[in-house]
């Protein structure tokens, strides 16, 4: 059987690897971006000089031939679903038996005047990185539109080269539609602490043309004009499915798939950022443009393609990021504005760069979610607590089990217990300190 995967990102590549583990089918991965799989999340480190492009490849180049995964560098122009054939930009047409679409995302553009000028880029593809590199020489200022995860990465990148940077954030605090207020303010402070010009409650009105088709300034909603040699568009992403629209494939915002990641056309699957789950499990969104879900979908689709029906189940939500120097981890349900049934305990370090938040159910006391800034907690432990609906007091007394900070780091779990005691008038004590053997025994329970 001939399987073709469009896209060599984490979803497509995970699918290819697992299909190979499960079967002897012929596998071809097509990408127009790069010859080999690289870690998209590491693009910023190439620009900052922490790594080279080669270092961001999770597998050596011989890996693909050894595992009989054929890589093709081309752009897919169109898909003939009836004939089961792809047409490539080089005119070649490729037949397939099963097709997996893993084309990822594209940066959002909201119809701003000048948004298609040169020197205006998102930060998503390898080509975006090349453009940033190209225009960084002699750059006097960059303006970044949008304050999500990619916006702050882009700011950190320019900042590493001492290029003055302005970030325009629509909200009154950085990423406060995702982060609770305290954490959001912490990151906002941290951005400013680095000397980055963070403009809150501010939006882009238009991008100006220097007369040669290059951006040279922006005007804000407030009327202010800022001269700049680069405009970064980081106001989110959307499924990269333009080339498939207006065909037989059912597309809403993304390619609509069922729980087995099958589209409306037989033998065609969609995974990763470009897929839209038609009935997401409770508490999850239909499109989750996240590395981790892409990886899980890749693994799931491999089973389904190999005729072993497995439902896509992303499990308990988790994510992580790094806001310049502050690491961020989230497990479970930690919304920006806590729901009515939720209670929260929050502790923040006096240095303003570390915090722990635990959400739990007001009535039942079951733990719902963890939010960590500058502190590391164990994924498996937090997940188990949430899955087992563990009572928050039980969690607090054994908080040491979750601690994943390096050895000799000060443990702040006690501080959180204090916060809880203060809020409730109880006298809980931390019973379990960190230690791997205790953790593993707990996980086996």
């Amino acid at each position: 059987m001939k399987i073709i995967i469009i896209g060599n990102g984490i979803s497509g590549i995970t699918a290819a690897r697992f299909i190979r583990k499960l079967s002897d089918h012929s596998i071809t991965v097509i990408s127009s971006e790069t010859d080999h799989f690289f870690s998209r999340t590491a693009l910023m480190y190439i620009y900052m000089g922490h790594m080279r492009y080669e270092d961001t490849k999770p597998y050596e180049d011989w890996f693909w031939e050894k595992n009989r995964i054929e890589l093709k560098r081309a752009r897919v122009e169109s898909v003939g679903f009836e004939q089961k054939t792809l047409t490539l930009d080089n005119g070649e047409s490729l037949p397939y038996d099963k097709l997996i679409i893993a084309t990822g995302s594209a940066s959002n553009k909201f119809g701003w005047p000048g948004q298609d000028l040169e020197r205006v880029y998102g930060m998503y593809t390898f080509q975006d990185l090349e453009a940033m590199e190209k225009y960084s020489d002699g750059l006097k200022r960059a303006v970044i539109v949008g304050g999500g995860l990619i916006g702050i990465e882009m700011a950190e990148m320019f900042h590493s080269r001492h290029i003055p940077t302005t970030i325009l954030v629509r909200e009154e605090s950085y990423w406060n539609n995702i982060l609770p207020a305290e954490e959001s303010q912490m990151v906002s402070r941290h951005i400013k602490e680095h000397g980055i010009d963070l403009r809150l409650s501010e939006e882009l009105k238009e991008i100006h043309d220097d007369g040669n088709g290059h951006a040279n300034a922006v005007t804000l909603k407030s009327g202010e004009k800022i001269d700049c040699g680069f405009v970064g568009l980081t106001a989110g992403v959307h499924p990269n499915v333009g080339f498939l629209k207006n065909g037989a494939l059912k597309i809403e915002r993304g390619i609509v798939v069922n729980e087995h990641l099958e589209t409306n056309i037989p033998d065609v699957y969609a995974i990763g950022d470009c897929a839209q789950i038609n009935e997401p499990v409770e508490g999850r969104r239909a499109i989750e443009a996240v590395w981790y879900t892409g990886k899980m979908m890749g693994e799931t689709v491999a089973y389904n393609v190999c005729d072993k029906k497995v439902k896509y189940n992303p499990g308990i939500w988790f994510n992580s990021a790094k806001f310049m120097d502050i690491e961020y981890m989230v497990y479970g349900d930690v919304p920006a504005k806590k729901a009515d049934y939720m209670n929260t305990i929050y502790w923040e370090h006096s240095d303003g760069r570390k915090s722990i938040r635990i959400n739990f159910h007001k009535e039942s006391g079951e733990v719902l979610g963890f939010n960590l800034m500058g502190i590391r907690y164990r994924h498996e432990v937090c997940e188990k607590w949430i899955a087992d609906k563990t009572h928050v007091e039980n969690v607090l007394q054994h908080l040491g089990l979750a601690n994943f900070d390096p050895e000799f780091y000060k443990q702040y779990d006690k501080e959180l217990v204090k916060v809880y005691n203060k809020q409730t008038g109880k006298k809980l004590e931390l019973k379990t300190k960190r230690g791997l053997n205790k953790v593993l025994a707990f996980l086996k329970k």
Partner: protein
Amino acid sequence: MNIINKIGLGIFVAALALFTLSLGLDSYQLKNEHLPGKSTSHQEAIKVAAEESGIIGKEYTNNIAYIADLKKAFKQAQKTQEENAKNGIPDGVNEWDFRMSDGDVKSYVFSAVKASSNGLIANNKLLFFFLTIGLGALGGLIYILPTFLKIPGIKNDHIYHSSMQRGLTVNVRGFFLAATILGLLVYGFYYTGGQLLWPVITLIIIGLIMYLVLGRKNEKSHEPTKSASPNITGWIGVITGVYLIVFYIILYWAPAYMTSWINMVDPLSHAMSGNDASQWFLYGTLYTIVIIVMGIRMIAKYRHNKYQILRTISVMFFQTVFAFTLPEILIRLNKPYYDFKNIWPLNYSFFFDYNIKDMLANGSFGIFLLVWGIALALVAVPVFVYFFGKRWYCSWVCGCGGLAETMGDPYRQLSDKSLRAWKYERYIINGVLVFAVVMTLLVLYTYFTGQGRVFGFLDSYSVRTWYGFLIGSGFAGIVGTGFYPLMGNRTWCRFGCPLAAYLGIVQRFKSKFRITTNGSQCISCGNCSTHCEMGIDVRWYAQRGQDIVRSSCVGCGVCSAVCPRGVLRLENGDSDISERASETRAIHISEDEVKLLY
């Protein structure tokens, strides 16, 4: 770079330039009292030869010409003794107090040059010590200072944009490797007095290892492409590497050319042991100062990370106190020179007959030293590795490790992460361990039986000479440190150190130490692998949620520090270790639905 960086760098470069130039700034005048000789017959022969050659009293301002003349004269003395020996060695005189070995000639040239130094440096030793080594350290510290003012966090910006830290292309690296190996073998031929045997055996073993790595079926398709190879070679790094290599060549095999430097540390040596400085004292002084200055840099760079800070303070302490100060105090007390933390087989001369005799001649203290040394190797290594992994030694105590973790930190990213490099690593480092063990057994055989030859052909003296030359000096020194900017800071520890191999075997098969990964949080970015000085492809394990148990891991903790998603943690705990470190973990789909893969 801000203004403080620039000032610091300027001072450092000026001090380094003066330090280098100072090798040519002294003048020399040989007087009778400078003439060396360990026995009266040597002294007489040298005196005659020196007088005949007319070098006594002659003023030299150029040490190259001076050393050439001295060598000629002393070789003449050697020849004379050789001819006299034909007529029979006088009664009651030891053969080697009469005959003059090549080693004797070399050390006589060295001590004559040092003693007869009489110029700018020799007459202003302390001043030049402060102008060169002192100012160099000061410049380094000033350069480091601004790092303390930055917001704490990972500071790896622009290392791959830096000509100093970028590394070499595969071709240039290959050139340096081949040139170094060939150079060592050719010089080794002369060093062992024209014996072909050892260079040839070494060449055969190198060929065998290359065959084992490259000759396998399918190996062609394992062509490494992401080895430590940038598109453009960083030439400042190459120049730094060449400088270090030349330094080590002079240090090991031509110390007579660096007497100006050794003279500079005479006052310090007098204050510590009461003796004149040797090249080893100079080396120890530089080594310690470098570890302290670059240790402060490491602390500044990782001041948010307590593990890194404690570890760095530890290596600074062990170098300053155990490796540098204590041995000098022992000498002052007329006890044998002893570095309490140096463990066989890294300390390969521990079981050499002169060392054992020296210890046995020192009463109960000497016996203590002997027992201590044996206990370190046979008890401390397995026990501590069992509880903490090899890191307790390699990145907390060891001197080589201490230098690698401080001076070498800017180059940690240059270690080759390819699968092929790992294959080379396993053959070479375990090969050196076997070599060290066999050499030591032969030496002990000779010690106990008095027989120099084993099985009629293996000469334990020439085996130990070759080990000292090839492994002790060539691998550990020239490649070990000279290759920091060329192949990373742990080239010796990863490919060559027999103690690391021994610690590694224990770590791999019987230790609580491992690096755990945090569930599914890995984003495969590659920071961990890139900054692993031992060339472990950490990401390979992390991205599949697999715990990491590798013999080479020295537990520096940098993978955990640079991980932007908090995925890695160094831990001591052995529950479920074989299960969690195995490849059979699937963590992305609930395990009841599908069978485990991997």
